[in-house]
């Protein structure tokens, strides 16, 4: 390869990978800045501004057809822009919510914001993957940054336990993932996702190698999105991590992993005997929805409950992937956007409610009695988030559920959708229980106790939460948000390359 020509090509591609490069650069700037001015309050502002600029750049790419950049390593524009905006919103909201929370527990380190930027860079790389190499490097960058963020609160045991658990199990699943990639490469002779199917056919007689590779690869993904047989780490990790960062973990890392899974299924495995992975995914989706909801029913700690509920939501997204159609993938992308708002909001409210220095690990349903009456803003936005998580009509969650379930019915998976709807009806119990405790169970405190439990709600955090709630209320009535991802999978529009 002619080296001079190669670098000209790379220079030309910088526009396609702009978000990724910007996030990495800003992260490095944060770290270097932190050396000279330790824990500077400017750093979160810088990180948040980076996310805003990157999201603005990605909005430009929403209407463009998808293309590849950096020698087919990543995709740019189109669906990738859509997912990247989800990831950047998640990072932005998390940064804003983290500042007062981390300052209160005296963990407002500059490194944290750099790590959030790096984790987002990894997520963006994962979500725009067009090659198995990119999938792996993106996944690892994101995961390692998250392991560190989870272990941020070190005293009390919960943080260490959850960080170590996450790290060990995550490293183990990475082993599966890498072995799967190795087998896939051996069976197809290529790392580029759209070439996988052709490579498989050209080599012939690689059945065992190929499907074993696909299975191991899927195990790695299903671990990251915490689907049911691989979900054991989720409640402990979510409970022990700093709450705003739990919100980030449950949205950005999940959205990125799902986006990569969509790309792998659509480009890599789409044309191959689809039934094979469809059946496997259908079974996983079924047990994930049922298991997640049933485990959530018996939780007394709200963060654990939300962790299991995020397992259940992963199951809903999997239903859309099982359909294996363009509508299904588009529905999943739309659901991930809505899910990010709901979960960021719910974890954000929980973060603000940790007023008495009790970390989330100790917060039970009972300690939240009557909070809605004392802090009406938090109560009202929590009501919106909970109803949206159930999938109650005027809110975003309802439209999201339509978007993921309808394609599955069209693809003939009616039984799966029936189970999904029943499971989400079940979820009404534990979501509404939170609201019952918030509003209808009065706290029988004496006046000094009430005085002792006064806590401020930072106005910026409240504004962000209100914004999330407003978005969830109106997003269903803005059809363009739902229809955009459809276009990316519309063969007539894109010629088969979303």
């Amino acid at each position, binding site marked *: 390869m002619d080296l001079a020509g190669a670098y000209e090509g790379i220079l030309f591609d910088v526009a396609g990978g702009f978000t990724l490069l910007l996030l990495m650069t800003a992260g490095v700037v944060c*770290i270097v800045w932190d050396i000279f001015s330790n824990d500077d309050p400017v750093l979160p502002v810088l990180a948040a501004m980076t996310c805003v600029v990157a999201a603005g750049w990605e909005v430009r790419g929403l209407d463009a057809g998808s293309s590849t950049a950096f020698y087919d390593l990543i995709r740019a524009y189109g669906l990738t822009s859509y997912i990247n905006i989800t990831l950047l919103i998640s990072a932005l909201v998390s940064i804003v919510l983290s500042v007062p929370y981390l300052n209160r527990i005296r963990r407002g380190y500059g490194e944290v914001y750099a790590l959030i930027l790096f984790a987002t860079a990894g997520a963006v790389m994962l979500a725009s993957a067009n090659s198995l190499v990119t999938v792996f490097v993106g996944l690892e960058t994101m995961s390692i940054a998250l392991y*560190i963020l989870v272990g941020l609160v070190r005293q009390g045991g919960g943080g260490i336990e959850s960080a170590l658990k996450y790290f060990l199990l995550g490293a183990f699943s990475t082993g599966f993932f890498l072995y799967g990639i190795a087998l896939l490469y051996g069976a197809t002779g290529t790392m580029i996702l759209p070439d996988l199917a052709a490579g498989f056919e050209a080599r012939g007689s690689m059945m065992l190698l190929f499907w074993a590779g696909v299975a191991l690869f899927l195990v790695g993904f299903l671990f990251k999105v915490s689907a049911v047989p691989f979900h054991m780490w989720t409640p402990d990790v979510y409970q022990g991590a700093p709450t705003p960062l739990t919100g980030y973990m449950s949205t950005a890392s999940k959205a990125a992993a799902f986006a990569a899974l969509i790309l792998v299924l659509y480009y890599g495995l789409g044309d191959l005997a689809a039934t094979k992975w469809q059946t496997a995914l259908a079974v996983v989706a079924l047990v994930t929805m049922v298991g997640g909801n049933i485990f959530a029913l018996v939780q007394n700690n709200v963060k654990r409950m939300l962790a299991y509920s995020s397992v259940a939501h992963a199951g809903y997204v999997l239903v859309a992937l099982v359909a294996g159609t363009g509508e299904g993938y588009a529905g999943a992308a739309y659901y991930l956007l809505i899910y990010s708002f709901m979960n960021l909001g719910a974890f954000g409210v929980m973060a603000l409610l940790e007023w008495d220095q009790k970390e989330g690990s100790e917060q039970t349903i009972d300690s939240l009695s009557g909070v809605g009456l004392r802090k009406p803003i938090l109560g009202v936005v929590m009501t919106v988030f909970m109803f949206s998580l159930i999938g109650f009509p005027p809110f975003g969650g309802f439209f999201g559920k339509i978007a993921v379930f309808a394609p599955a019915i069209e693809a003939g998976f009616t039984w799966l959708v029936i189970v999904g709807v029943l499971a989400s009806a079940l979820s009404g119990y534990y979501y509404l229980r939170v609201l019952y405790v918030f509003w209808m169970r009065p706290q029988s405190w004496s006046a000094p106790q009430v005085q002792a439990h006064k806590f401020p709600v930072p106005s910026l955090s409240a504004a962000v939460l209100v914004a999330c709630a407003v978005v969830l209320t109106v997003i269903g009535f803005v059809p363009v948000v739902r229809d955009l991802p459809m276009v990316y999978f519309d063969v007539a529009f894109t010629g088969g390359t979303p």
Partner: protein
Amino acid sequence: MLAESLFVMLGTLSVIGALGMLIARNPVSSALWLILTLFCVAGLYLTLSAEFIAVVQVLVYAGAIMVLFLFVIMLLNLGTMPTMKGVGWKKAVGFVLCVVVLTQLVLIGATGLDLLPATEVVDVANAGSATTIAKSLFTRYALAFEVIGILLLVATIGAVMLAKRRFA
């Protein structure tokens, strides 16, 4: 022919090394067995003309990582595990025979169902040289290469932050 016999020799040695690592009762001898395996794998890379990877394998795994392992083992002061005296030679022979029979069964099953990949000869004359790897690393995989740099930075920051920060 030479390559084949080399492969058989190195492959057998590396499997023996792996077994030895599992069976060894003392953590330090486990680590030494592992070094044997790593060296043999490096040799396997050499037979595939992947010189660069072979050298890196020896430098990184057999060198740096093993030294770390040994340090950790010695610092942790692990005791030896219970000996294998209790297992009689009959059981040992039975185990070996079982493994042999199982291997044959799996092999027959795999060939019968046509699951094994076809043998193929890949032209690897220049594939493993440092020049080839460097060229594709800095052009085709330049982005991944840079992001791995960020990954290592993140890991370093994390190690320093989690271990060194004074938590007040």
